[in-house]
Each structure stands twice: as C-alpha cells, then as structure tokens.
C-alpha cells in the first residue's frame, strides 16, 4: 500500500512538468504572433528544433513549402525558445533562388521579422536554421499584413 502511494505520488509530481511541454510551445507561438504586430493576421507557424551542425558538415535546416499570393503582404517572424542556444533565422527561396533572409551574412545583422510584398503567386520555400549552426529551438510565424 505504501509503495503504491509512493508510485502515484511520484507520478503526480512528474506529470505536470511533462504535460506543460505542449502548452509551453503554444505560449511561444502566441507570444511570437503578438510580437508580429497589431496590423497582422496569423496564418501559419513552424516549430523548429535542430541539432548543432556536426564538424565539417552542413548546417541543419528545417524547410517548408508555402504558397504565397500576389498582392498580399506577409510578415515572417522568428522567436527563439528560452533555452535555445542558437538564434533562429528564416530565408525565403523562390525556385531555388534566395529572395530574402532575416540574417544578413555580410553585415552580420539579424532581424526578428522580415516583410515580403508578394507580386507572384507561387510555391515558395522557407528555410529555418540557427545562426552559426548552433543547436536550437524556436518558432517561425507567418502573418498576413492587413
């Protein structure tokens, strides 16, 4: 009887911390949507978790294809998880050609969001990675600018 009490107590102690994992991600998405600004409407989020780049290996990337529409303005925001070592960046590609990135490699400047005024409807590819190939987790949010 005593052992059952210990087991159940232990489970009750540990369960809440496990159960919080999903809401914590949702909270990060929500705060990232809020940070995108008042004049935006949420469309999509991407939850990104990547390992550190191995020595002499390419940087791990999370990619997603997304239709972007002509005459629409989009905002791509990135937010890092509190424990993330790396800083998340987003780069938009159109048929393999890089259009815009939230990290300017030449100047070293990083933006938390980028705006894209779309004039060509089509399938674009979003690449999410962490600066310098560090391990990290975070979310990318895509909003429509009103």
């Amino acid at each position, binding site marked *: 009887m005593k*052992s*059952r009490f*210990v*087991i159940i107590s*232990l*489970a009750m102690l*540990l*369960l809440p*911390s*496990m159960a*919080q*994992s*999903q809401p*914590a*991600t949702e909270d990060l998405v*929500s705060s990232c949507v809020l940070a995108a600004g008042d004049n935006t*409407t*949420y*469309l*999509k*989020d991407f939850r990104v*978790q990547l*390992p550190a780049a191995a020595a002499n*290996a*390419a*940087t*791990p990337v*999370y*990619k997603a*294809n*997304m*239709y972007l*529409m*002509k*005459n*629409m303005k989009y905002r791509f925001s990135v937010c890092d*998880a*509190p*424990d993330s070592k790396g800083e998340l960046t987003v780069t938009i590609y*159109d048929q*393999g050609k890089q*259009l*815009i990135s939230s990290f*300017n490699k030449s100047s070293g400047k990083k*933006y938390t969001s*980028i*705006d*894209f*005024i*779309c*004039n*060509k*409807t*089509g*399938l674009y590819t979003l*690449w999410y990675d962490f600066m310098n190939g560090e391990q990290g*987790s975070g979310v990318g949010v*895509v909003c*429509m600018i*009103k």
Partner: protein
Amino acid sequence: MTIFHTFVIKQERLMTGTISKLVTVILLMSFCACGDNSARQGGLSFPVADSVPAGEAVKLSDEAVADIVQNIASPVEISAILQSMKVPFSAEYLAPTQGADRLTTNFQKAVMLGIYGADLGYLNMYEKTGNSVDVLSTIKRLADGLRVGQFFDFETLKRLSVSKSNLDSLLFISVNSYNQIDEYLRDNERGSISALMITGVWIEGQYLASQVALGKHDEILRDRIGEQKIILGDLLMLLRPYRESSADYASLYAMMETIAATYRDVRITYRLGEPETVEQDGRLVMVQKEESIVEMSDEQLAQVAAISKDVRTKLIYGK
C-alpha cells in the same frame, strides 16, 4: 483517471517489489520525456525536424511537395481581399449547418470540416462572431467525430465569439486549431483525412471568391481565382494517392478534375524583375518585382464559378 494513471496502476499490479515499481515508473517517465529532448531542457515540444543540408538544392519531387505544402487554401486571405473590395458580408454564402448531424462517414465529416473552417474564417474576418457560434458547434462535433476535437478549444472560441472582445485572438486560435489538426492528421498517417479537409477549405474559398467575382469586377479577386490553376494542380496531387481507395474519393477526384479542366485555357505568365529590399523601422522589407499575370476571360470566370458551385453543392448536399 488519465491513460497514464491507468497504465501506472496496471504496471503496479504486475510487479511485486517496491524498488522494481519505482524503477518502472521512472523508466516510464523517462520514456515519455525522451521522445522530445526539448521537453526536458526547456519545457517545449517540437516535432521532429525535416533536416537537410543547407547547401542542397531546393528541388522536390511532386510527391514530396504534396506532403509538405503548407497554406494550400487560406480562407482568411480570400476574406481579406473581399474586405479590401468593400464587399459586404453575406450569410447566403455560408454552408448550412442543419444537416451536419446526419453526416456518418469520415469522408463527409472531413470535407465538411474544411468547408465550415472556411466559413468560420469568413465570419471572423468580417467580425460576424455572433453568427459563428452555430458554425463553431458544428465544427466541434465534426472534429470530435474525426477524433481531432482535442485541438479545438471550443469553449475559448465560443467565449471570444460571444464577447467579440478579441478578434485577433479568435482568428489566431481558430486558424491555429485547423493547422494543428492538419499537422496531427499528417503525422499520424491520416493524410487522406487531411487532404479532404484541405479540399473542403479550398472549395468553399473558391465558391466564395468566384460568386463575389461574378457580381463585382475586381482585378485582384479575378487574379486570385485564376491563380487557383496553380494550386489546384497541387490539390489534385494531394488527392491522387487516395482516388482508388473508395468510390467517394474517386468521385471527389473526378469532380476536382472537372474544375481543373475549366482552367485549361486560363493563362498565367511571368514578368521578370529584380526585387527591392529596404529597411523600414528596423525591419527588412522586400518588394518583389517579378510578377505573375493571369489572363482569364469573363466566360472562363463564369465557367469556373459554375463548376465550383456545382462541386460544392454535390459535396454539401450529396447531389
């Protein structure tokens, strides 16, 4: 009592020693937590990343595109165009909710979940949130029927709808719920249901846009309808693997092909241009100069609208 509690107690009955019980619980905890490393590190949960080397060319097979295309149909974007055109809200465009209780198959439920999702986006964008409670209730019943109701925070959505207090939150939660349902279905090898839901969202958005376009000339809206030629190709690709799985899927696929056929002579061309990038208020802004140009005649628009309406009617009323 949760599944986890039940599982722990069953395990306890099977074992005898206190130490072994404790070890079992700890192992169970570890097993549950180690599926997601981040859960232990920072209390966050992320799906397994689709990792590829950064240097790899962005080339995807058709099948891969079908797997990962996001945002194939966004009712929020269609509604935003209608609002910018100052098109008044019309409840006549909404699908009826009366027959939803009689839907019996997962096929019907999934398609209608998509159709009502598009209607919900339309209602919310126009701030007709009072009207949306009925649609919300129907969506909740359908989502429960498809065992994805856990992603739909009905009470919060209902509260936000009734109070009209926070439209941004309402839009976020409702769109996010659909995104989560879609992701869950794909991750759990229920892609066929996801494809139906996406098709439902698309057909309702297409119906709404084309019906408005028939009565009000607007180049942006016409372009949006014409551009669906591109998206429809991917939608067919998404449905193709399931078309022989049942008569319902075969019929849906055939209907979508009839819509695609009406687009055959709609021309989409591209004008090249170099993008311009500026920094505004600490944010990088890119204006794309490359342009897609749609050529669609009034007759073609009328045909697309008629066929889209016909397909929607068959999906909703079954005839």
